[in-house]
């Protein structure tokens, strides 16, 4: 700690003791959980994509849209039944980074603010968290597109 001087000796001792006893965050274990759960969600997504390619007139290019819709639909069900919360607690980023996390963010706020009415409650709070995903997603896509355009111009 950098503000050690403002603390008494007793406080400093306590701080040391506390650091010794404090439970360490299992970062690597969490990474593994996130990796496998996130990977499993993506595996399900791939299965759905393949399903659409084989049984409907979708190409690899176009099968993405119905896949995302299907996955978000199932996330909606899982969120509504309270199962996605448990998955989120277990897997952390593994359940938040795929599109299911986005769906969960939209749907859970919609459920939460339902009592405040449809306009001021659901409508205005639905994109509380998801709004920032959209804003920064669009913004970073814009930046990347500019960089790509410039590179293409320079490199030929």
């Amino acid at each position, binding site marked *: 700690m950098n503000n050690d001087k403002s603390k008494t000796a007793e406080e400093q001792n306590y701080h040391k003791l506390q650091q010794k006893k404090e439970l360490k965050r299992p970062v*690597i274990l969490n990474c*593994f959980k996130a990796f496998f759960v996130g990977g499993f969600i993506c595996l399900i997504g791939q299965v759905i994509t393949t399903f659409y*390619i*084989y049984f409907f*007139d*979708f*190409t*690899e*290019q*176009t*099968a*993405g*849209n119905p896949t995302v819709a299907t996955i978000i639909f199932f996330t909606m069900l899982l969120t509504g039944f309270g199962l996605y919360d448990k998955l989120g607690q277990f897997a952390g980023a593994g359940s938040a980074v795929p599109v299911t996390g986005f769906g969960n963010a939209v749907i859970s706020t919609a459920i939460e603010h339902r009592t405040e009415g449809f306009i001021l409650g659901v409508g205005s709070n639905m994109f509380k968290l998801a709004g920032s995903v959209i804003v920064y997603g669009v913004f970073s896509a814009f930046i990347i597109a500019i960089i790509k355009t410039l590179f293409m111009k320079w490199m030929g």
Partner: protein
Amino acid sequence: MIKLKNSIYFFLILFFLIGCQANDNAANDPSFTKLSTTSHNQHLSNQIKDYLASDKDVTTISAVNAGKDVIVTIEIPHMKRFRLATIREKLEKDIKKEFNLDKVEVSTDQKIIMELDKLEKRIERDAITEDEIKKEVGRIMKLSKEET
């Protein structure tokens, strides 16, 4: 205890990463079937298959033509998929130049590969008329150009 756990994770990672490298035998020649040309005029697509067969970047080829409109599908070794678009464009240009064609569609899309395989099998069994081939080729070309 921690060492044991760490080593388990270490090996897990190791195996997962090595697993990706397994069956990637790119040295084989590309596989394709030449269509019989007795009832349908598939000379052009057979020639294209022969032309592509020498290419190291390609593992399987199928091609069907309706008159001068040709659809070609290729599969490439998995590790070369990073250059998928480049390879596809290069082959399309090469074929157009070599055979002096205007309407050539080279696709690496799984759906197009499936549809073209079905069409090839139907031509092989002679269960299709010239008109139907034309219609199917048009349909598959349209499908391959679809965008999100």
